[in-house]
């Protein structure tokens, strides 16, 4: 069971937010950062860079993109920032269902076209 299962947050959604979320998660490195934070909890840039194959500078850049999409937040602790996932579980779950919904719309349209031919 994923540790974020208890992490339920509600936020207002709009089409623009969806586009941000798509773009933010559409990059393999950023997706790995999200999965890392999701599985093992908050971490510093140094720690995140050590766990991945990219530089601290790259991690910092990707975290800024994720932060703009509202997926992560950094909080200063001493000389470094600790980054954590925002409570996005519900948001991801909803957007995901939108993808599934659009996919079924297209699939049913193809079924319709096939049997009406």
């Amino acid at each position: 069971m994923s540790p974020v299962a208890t992490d339920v947050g509600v936020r207002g959604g709009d089409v623009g937010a969806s586009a941000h979320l798509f773009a933010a998660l559409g990059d393999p490195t950023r997706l790995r950062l999200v999965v890392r934070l999701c599985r093992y909890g908050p971490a510093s840039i140094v720690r995140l860079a050590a766990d991945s194959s990219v530089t601290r500078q790259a991690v910092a850049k990707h975290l800024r993109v994720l932060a703009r999409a509202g997926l992560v937040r950094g909080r200063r602790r001493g000389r470094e920032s600790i980054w954590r996932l925002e409570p996005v579980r519900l948001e991801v779950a909803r957007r995901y269902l939108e993808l599934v919904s659009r996919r079924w719309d297209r699939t049913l349209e193809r079924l319709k076209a096939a049997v009406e031919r």
Partner: protein
Amino acid sequence: MTAPDASTDRIEKSIVVRAPRGRVWRALSDAAEFGAWFGVDFDPASFAPGATVRGRITHPGYEHITMEIVIERMVEGRLLSYRWHPYAVDPAADYSKEPTTLVTFELHDAPEGTLVTVVESGFDRIPLHRRAEAFRMNVQGWAGQMRNIEAHVAGRH
């Protein structure tokens, strides 16, 4: 274990098609016909309860993906259901131990033809990171589509 959230666990869609129920049933229950409109090239196989059926996705940009479904129930002319790993898009990942969703097609007579309803449920049990991957796949899928369109247009000039 928390109870599934109705708003994120399940999706229901329906469409009315201008064709008799028997015709729609054939399109659902015949593996080759199903594959033709669904967009998957099934290995020679037929649908039967308990059967595992595999095939290659035929949509542009997704051709490297194998789709696998396990037929659950078949009620002649009325119902087809199967289980699968939704958006199982990473060829390197082992999805076999992960939960599946249940897809159920139901057919009902309608004045204009046949009402087709599809329900997919069980999403709340799918790991969140798997669901997040679907966004990436969506982006990649689009990139693939764009490449195909470009190739198509380039070929015409």
